[in-house]
């Protein structure tokens, strides 16, 4: 019996090799990963644009050059035909897909139950709720929702991973957000731009932001992404641009650098 009692004594075993004194060895499971990429949304008076690159990464590996980040929400079939709302997700792609599918289901159910399509503002509030429901195990994504509001104006809502949201004129998200966002401040909201000759000192008048025409916005989106591709390794391959107007949703792809 004494030999059994010895178990409690915790003698050190005399191995020839050194023992690690650390506690339990464990290979922790981390349920998130970052799949890189960047997204961007800009609105105009009668349209909204959501764009994203199509590169998927894990670490320094490129998983695929064609994984879209912008999705049509509440369409009638698999292709998203008939949808009026668009969602972009960037961050952890598996969470992004799960979030997209939940919102898609919700918007479809709304249409079946109420016999009318869900408004963007209602969808925006619902998305916030979905994100907040997972407050303590969040969807690790930055979401941007776009569509046309009740007056037909472009509407854009941006979210943090736990559901804080805000309607904005423009927003960049993802890996290259810090590169793109100040460029957008300057070119879309005319931040730091003044009207020449309007006065000295405090009398100098700031240039007022006004809704930009569609072609200008398309140009800005492409410029923003070609710039981001140049300086961020996780951004590249293709640019997916989704344009929402009263006539429906148009989706176009442009090549970006593949290095």
């Amino acid at each position, binding site marked *: 019996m004494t*030999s059994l009692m010895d178990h409690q004594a915790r003698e050190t075993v005399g191995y020839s090799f050194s023992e690690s004194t650390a506690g339990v060895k464990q290979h922790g*499971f981390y349920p998130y990963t970052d799949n890189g990429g960047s997204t961007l949304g800009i609105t105009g008076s009668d349209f909204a644009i959501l764009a994203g690159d199509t590169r998927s990464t*894990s670490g320094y590996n490129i998983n695929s050059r064609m994984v879209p980040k912008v999705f049509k929400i509440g369409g009638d079939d698999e292709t998203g035909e008939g949808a009026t709302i668009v969602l972009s997700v960037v961050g952890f792609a598996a969470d992004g*897909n799960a979030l997209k599918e939940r919102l898609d289901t919700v918007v479809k159910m709304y249409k079946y139950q109420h016999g009318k399509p869900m408004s963007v503002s209602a969808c925006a509030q619902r998305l916030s709720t979905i994100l907040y429901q997972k407050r303590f195990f969040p969807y690790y994504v930055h979401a941007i929702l776009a569509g046309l509001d009740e007056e037909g104006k472009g509407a854009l809502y941006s979210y943090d991973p736990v559901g804080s949201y805000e309607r904005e004129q423009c927003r960049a998200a993802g890996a290259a957000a810090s590169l793109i966002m100040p460029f957008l401040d300057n070119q879309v909201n005319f931040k730091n731009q003044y009207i020449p000759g309007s006065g000295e000192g405090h009398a100098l008048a700031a240039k007022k932001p006004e809704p930009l025409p569609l072609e200008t916005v398309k140009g800005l989106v492409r410029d923003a992404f070609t710039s981001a591709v140049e300086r961020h390794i996780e951004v590249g391959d293709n640019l997916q641009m989704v344009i929402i107007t009263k006539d429906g949703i148009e989706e176009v792809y442009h090549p970006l650098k593949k290095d």
Partner: protein
Amino acid sequence: MDHFPGTWGRPRNDVYGAYDPSYLQSTGPKTHTTSPAVTGTSVVGVKFNGGVVLATDNLASYGSLARFTDTKRLRVFGNQAVVGFGGDVSDMQYMDRLLESMDIRENYSSHGNMLNAKNLHTYLSKVFYKRRSEFNPLWNHVLVAGFDGEGKPFLSSADLLGTTFSAPHLATGFGAHLAVPILRRLFPEEKPIEEISREDAVDALKQCLKVLFYRDARSLDKYSIAVITKDGIDLKEDEQLEGQSWAFAERIKGYGAQAV
């Protein structure tokens, strides 16, 4: 006679000292599900004109030990889809059982098994995502090959986190580093898959497996390869890598205790 079965088969305390119970975790969360044990290495796959090829080697490692050398890591589902498993082998066998029971269930239905590779991939990625969300992951990275709903060749990946992506050529694990660059050089992305023949695709995968055998220490020169076409699945599970040349090895210098 030692009357205490708990001490049978153990090194004697008076010789080796008492058993160190710190190896047995008695507090804290369950952790045995959060690391793989017996593992398979890379899976490689490529699309070609009219189908998809998928290949793995036949090794299941236990850490650095080459534990099982005839493990079949390509699993056939129905008659037009194949799943290639990398990662934990017991989790692979569990998922294989899931797929088997689903196949049987589908075949008992009036319409038969109509699930294609795309459906299968969706199902598997949701199983992965559900399990990772429960903090009880299935420690695998799989490639699913076959055809989609429109009858076009389909090749897609899913991993333990539920991350999914597809491309004309894919590889998991070490293959993502060593095989993908070879495949991207042989079949550039601007080249349509209609211009890739079955023979070229099979030869490319054999070349990839060879490079992996040269450089991946947890790999084997015995492999399985599956060619999925409209005519069915051609699965070979007992292949041997041919045409190896280890001449390059002589030029490798400067590692370990070697005196250069």
